[in-house]
């Protein structure tokens, strides 16, 4: 028989698909682990996270959907992070997580949206985002539903700083 705290810790691990110490796993927890309802609890949590992400990081969400990674990215984020119950804060956490993604385009888009969120909240810093392709063409493709442009060299976007509304792009031939 597990203690109340052990039982709750184990439920958190089960819901978030984390490893569960053998000593924490009694008959009840094994029953929960094998239940269909465990997936339902996770689905409900993911549905709310997805809604918050689509509302608060629409560009990153749209790019993820475009390349078929939205649901796995949300699930990975939920399971691996202590996500905030406050949607605006959770969205920033999500963008921070995606801004170190292995895909350079995803990294750039998340960093771009994160910079815009921070500047909108009054952050005085200037953020420089590096892209492996033309960001204007990426945004146009997302808006129009067209194929994404191919990488064509280094581009930079500057957000914030002394001119807080600056959104300049400096294509640098690759």
């Amino acid at each position, binding site marked *: 028989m597990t*203690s*109340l*705290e052990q*039982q*709750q*810790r184990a*439920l*958190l691990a089960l*819901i978030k698909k984390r490893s569960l110490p053998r000593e924490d796993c009694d008959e*009840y927890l094994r*029953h*929960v682990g094998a*239940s269909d*309802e*465990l997936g*339902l*609890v996770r*689905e*409900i*949590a*993911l549905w*709310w*996270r997805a*809604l918050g992400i689509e509302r608060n990081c629409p560009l990153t969400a749209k790019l993820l959907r475009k390349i078929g990674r939205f649901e796995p990215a949300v699930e990975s984020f*939920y399971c691996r992070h*202590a*996500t*905030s*119950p*406050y949607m*605006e*804060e959770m969205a*920033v956490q999500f963008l921070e997580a995606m801004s170190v993604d292995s895909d350079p385009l995803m990294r750039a888009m998340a960093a771009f949206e994160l910079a815009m969120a921070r500047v909108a*909240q009054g952050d005085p810093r200037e953020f420089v985002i590096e892209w492996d392709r033309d960001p204007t063409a990426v945004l146009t493709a997302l808006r129009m539903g067209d194929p994404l442009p191919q990488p064509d060299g280094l581009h930079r976007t500057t957000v914030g700083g002394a001119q807080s509304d600056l959104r300049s792009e400096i294509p640098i031939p690759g």
Partner: protein
Amino acid sequence: METPSTQTAAHGFGLATTYEGGDASLLERIAPLVDYLEITPDSIARRMNSSARLDESTLAEIRELGRGRKALVHGVGLSIGTASGWNEDYLRLLDELLPEVDALWHSEHLGLTMIEGEHLGSMLALPRTERMLELVCERVRRLQEAYSLPFLVENIVHLLPDAPADYSDAGFLNALAGRTGCGLILDVYNLECDAHNYGFDIEVFLAELEMQHVREIHLAGGVLHRGYRLDVHSRLVADSTIALARRVIAQAPNLGAVTYELLPEAVPTLGHEAVARELARLSSLLAS
């Protein structure tokens, strides 16, 4: 208690509905149809840079509507059953909100939303053990000492299989209310969800529940997903839910409010007129 003014007044209870701010035209449409507004501190808060605060514009709106209208303060994030400690953030929001509203009472769900500081993104029912009962009783008493308002707890849906228990659902609620003097919110739609999802026996539950503790009823409409009935507060109220509410109303001598809960996300889909029509329908049906 303020005298309710809707059709339910003759029965001694007021009609309420959810309002989370930011929709002045909805408020204008529904305010004349209800006696109280249900306000959820967590839902009108913003948390940035590790600090949760009530949203200033929503707070201004609530101050305005608070003139002459009582609020039912109903939390979602206290996590009263978390063994490692409840959510202190929620209590700070409550401290911020309560001086701003004329609250009839405040309430929370009998569940947990966080474990060891990590939010689940969902709400889990508590194991009905003596150990959990002692823990929740102790926390209810702390709330009663801290705030000079009645405190109510609400039954929630059981999403996961039940843990081994010392009490039945009604027995646990009876013991909690009996030991602490707290009131109960009976969410009759949650009972229907449990009945649909795992065969929960509503008749047995109602026969065992000590109805004098029930101060508020919650009504909602939800959806079916993969065969499960979900408590998402996204639809109009089904006739079966209204019928169940009427049965409880007839048996609950200390009932003060019936609340139709609706997510703000569902309002654009339903439309303001449909919400208003639903409130008028509920007022009429619950009073008849």
